[in-house]
């Protein structure tokens, strides 16, 4: 085991620990941490089993194994980006409804207050 592999394994483990800590402190919801745990595990597996990437590359017919990493990362980034767009869209819609509800309720409270004003 050479230095680079030790560094990679340590970084992957650190990454997983970081995600774990964020989830434990409720900075990330469990449902959203899942995808990051998965990413960290993939990193860890590939740093422990060095031959895995070469085998995978051979399977896809890629001559230069590291070239396989770029499209995989790109695809993951895209999927994550889309996932966040979905989450933000839902949040925006929920937020809109809440703002409308607050406005309507404040109006109703004001109405009730004037109706029940002691004479």
């Amino acid at each position, binding site marked *: 085991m050479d230095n680079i592999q030790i560094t990679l394994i340590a970084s992957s483990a650190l990454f997983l620990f970081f995600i774990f800590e964020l989830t434990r402190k409720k900075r990330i919801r469990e449902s959203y941490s899942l995808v990051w745990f998965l990413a960290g595990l993939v990193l860890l597996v590939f740093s422990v089993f060095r031959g895995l990437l070469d085998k995978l590359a051979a399977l896809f017919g890629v001559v230069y194994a590291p070239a396989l990493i770029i499209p995989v990362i790109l695809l993951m980034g895209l999927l994550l980006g889309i996932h966040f767009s979905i989450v933000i869209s839902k949040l925006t819609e929920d937020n809109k409804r809440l703002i409308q509800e607050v*406005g*309507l309720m*404040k109006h109703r409270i004001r109405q009730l207050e004037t109706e029940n004003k002691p004479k």
Partner: protein
Amino acid sequence: MKILTIVPAYNEAGSIEATITHIRAVDLDLEIVVIDDCSTDQTAALAYAAGVDVVRLPINLGIGGAVQTGFRFAVDNHFDIAVQVDGDGQHDPAFIPNLIAPILEDRADVVVGSRFIRREGFQSLFMRRLGIRLFQHLNRLLIRQKITDSTSGFRAYNAAALRVLQHNYPVDYPEPEALVLLKKRRFRLAEVPVLMRNRHAGESSISGWKSIYYMIKVTLSILIESVRLPDG
């Protein structure tokens, strides 16, 4: 027959009082709700002083979200008809009786006030007219009905249409898209001629580069709305 006028307003202190006065001058029993979209000026205070219902949104939602608040207000308070009259003074409330006539006669569920049927009054700016033309043809293709002024927000809705729109109204630039949405749910659309004025005060929300974004965004929204399933 309970009729509500929904007046969405964002920083319209210069014209809100006049709008309310003009609505009150109409020979109908109209209730008024001003939806103040988190204005930073005196809009809400002036509306309160005028003695109308005011719903103040705590955060700015934009025209779509503000108008939808009005729809929800109309449904919650069991109104039979709601008319949208913008707070900037472009819509002349004197046309409200014409606007609600097709609903009263049960010829339509939704009525759009169009400035292009008689081609009188403020005809909007060149670029805006070009966009309106584009939406006119796009809409005709998609809903198979000619709507000459699909960007007009001067509209009347019956209770059935309001019940759908309170849950389902487009956000950013809602007017052209809402027509497709309504038509797909088999609501009957009608247009009546109205005169529009140039705004009393304030500025149009759409100008410059924004108008190009507006055209692209609305075109995309209309196209997507037309393939969306009605329950979606």
